[in-house]
């Protein structure tokens, strides 16, 4: 698998980019100082999106399962904070535990049905599940329906204090690092090898004796869990949970992040998240500075940018950099 170097080459552009990105994130709160609370929050959002994208990439990039419904797990995670909080349960560990448990159950069920199909049908059936959950949340009148639910305070993690912005930031940062490391290990492990092999040729994998369905289901649930944690964090960041977090547009955005960063690379999703969200932030300002009348049309540029990236780079931004030794 040429996309995946077997050993790290410290001088390869990919490694350098990865180190620079990680280091920047690590130092960001220090760099921007007290005045930069906004940037810290923005970076937290980037990390949260990255975490969800890392989860999605695990099945999309490595397993070939294009889920168009992963936002539903983000939404689920968010509601697993907001609803217990409504009932005075504020422990963050409890929120995470509930989110993980709920997600495991739902993802196992949805995955088991969805994985009966492949390709485009899989895309659509995952979308279908997400839409059902979305409309389900919209009809939750006692929990705000589509107006959503506000959180009085952030979750209470005994060891980590996330009530400050920097605290939440570092918590998210640690989650992303852990997710990156775990997916790096998993992808190179026999499990990952078989998962990738099943993507490349399912028929052969089966004939070799691999229970492909089980591998895929496990991968699907794992990836959903990452998204659920992202949802927990998002609810804490915005102090809000709403069906909008499960809208198909967010599922689409996650896919875009993964592809933009570089499909089937471990680090790509983080780069993709940084790029997409930074563009959404910078472009309006840029357009305003040059063509003030057209500020609200900045999405035109974003669209063009995404289009040309897809056209020019075969493996996304990070994926197109040279990797380590083959």
């Amino acid at each position, binding site marked *: 698998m040429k996309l995946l170097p077997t050993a790290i080459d410290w001088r390869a552009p990919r490694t350098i980019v990865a180190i620079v990105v990680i280091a920047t994130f690590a130092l960001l709160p220090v760099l921007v100082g007290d005045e930069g*609370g*906004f*940037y810290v929050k923005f970076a937290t959002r980037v990390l949260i999106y990255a975490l969800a994208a890392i989860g999605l990439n695990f099945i999309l990039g490595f397993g070939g399962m294009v889920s168009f419904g992963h936002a539903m797990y983000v939404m689920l995670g968010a509601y697993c904070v907001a609803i217990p909080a409504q009932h005075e349960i504020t422990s963050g560990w409890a929120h995470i535990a509930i989110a993980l448990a709920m997600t495991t159950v739902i993802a196992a069920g949805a995955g088991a049905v969805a994985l009966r199909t492949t390709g485009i049908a899989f895309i659509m059936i995952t979308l279908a599940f997400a839409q059902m959950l979305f409309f389900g949340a919209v*009809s939750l009148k006692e929990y*705000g329906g*589509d*107006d959503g639910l*506000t959180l009085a305070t952030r979750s209470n993690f005994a060891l980590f204090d996330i009530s400050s912005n920097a605290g939440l930031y570092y918590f998210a940062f640690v989650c992303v690092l852990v997710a990156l490391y775990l997916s790096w290990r998993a992808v190179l492990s026999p499990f990952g090898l078989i998962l990738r092999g099943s993507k490349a040729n399912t028929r052969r994998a089966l004939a070799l004796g691999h229970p492909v369905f089980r591998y895929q289901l496990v991968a699907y649930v794992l990836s959903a869990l990452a998204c659920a944690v992202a949802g927990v964090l998002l609810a804490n*960041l915005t102090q809000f949970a*709403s069906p909008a977090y499960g809208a198909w547009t967010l599922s689409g955005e996650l896919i875009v992040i993964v592809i933009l960063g570089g499909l089937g690379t471990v680090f790509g999703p983080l780069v993709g998240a940084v790029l997409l969200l930074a563009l959404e932030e910078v472009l309006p300002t840029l357009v305003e500075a040059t063509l003030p009348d057209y500020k609200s049309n900045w999405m035109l540029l974003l669209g063009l940018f995404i289009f040309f990236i897809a056209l020019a780079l075969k493996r996304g931004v990070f994926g197109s950099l040279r990797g380590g030794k083959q």
Partner: protein
Amino acid sequence: KIGFVAELSGPQAPLGQDQYDALMLLIEQNGGKLGGVAVQVIKEDSQLKPDVANQVVDKLLEKDKVQIITGVTFSNIMMAVHKKITDKGVFLIGSNAGPSPIAGAQCSPYFFSTSWQNDMQAESVGKFASDKGYKNVIAMAPNYQAGKDFIAGFKRTFKGGSVIDEIYTPLNQQDFSAELAQVASKKPDALYVFYPGGLGVNFVKQFQQAGLNKSITVMSASTVDGTTLPALREAALGWMSGTFWGPDFPNEANQKFVAAFEKKYNRIPSQYAAQSYDAAQLLDSAIRKVSGKVDNKKAFHAALKAADFKSVRGNFKFNTNQFPVQDMFMFDVAKDAKGRVSLRTVAKPLVNHTDSYAAQCQMKAL
């Protein structure tokens, strides 16, 4: 520095655009000032996404350090940012969305609305229907929070007849042929609908095409308004709509506003523009009162609360929950003097109307 947040992209952008244009209109009329103080409006697009709204509000609060935020188009966006803004002690002047929790239990001294609580429009239509003595009414709305609120509000004030059927359509549904066939077959005295934005455009057109304009009276809320009428034109003639303001209001403030708005933007202002214009006037009056010292929160709050300005809607004052107490009107769609399709006042079903959640609000002192 004033922050302005609204939907400025996507299908719902016309609402946000009207809010923005009206705000800027007043500031321009005042020579770039509000209350005698030069202001800078920082405009942000919430893209109808709660997490984006959060993001832009963070930016306004922490990077731009604004002291006042106005705008906010949709209820779910309001819910996502309301707490964050008011917790910071920044004044939020809502010029559209008025979800019930904010009028009730979650009310805050830092929040003022120059529009309405969501149920108010529905209640005025309900009252109107009672006054007219309709017996059998069918109510229709999309199946989401606001849709349910609007039907509940209608039923609250509709007395003497019965709602023979409530039809909730999926939020993403664009074609109403099935429901219209249903309605036609039941032959109600009147139909009450709530279909905001593009949904309304679809609904009105399809209603007309089904040949129902002649046979069924329609009372609507948030369906035919300044943002949808340009797309609907003759198709909406005869439709009725309940709200607090119409461009034909004779009071002087309004005549001036409508004329200026039409002159500058070359279109009839919508109620969203009117609400936002009032928000701007409110700020203008309050800032003037404290002579620009917005930092003195107590004084500024009192100044806002006094609502000492000439609202384009005429009567205006704040209730305990800092939502307006106002008259509610009924309009129908007709051609105006210049032959354009617009709203025309036909009745005033509710006078000095208050919303029904104020009782749940225990307003903290500042």
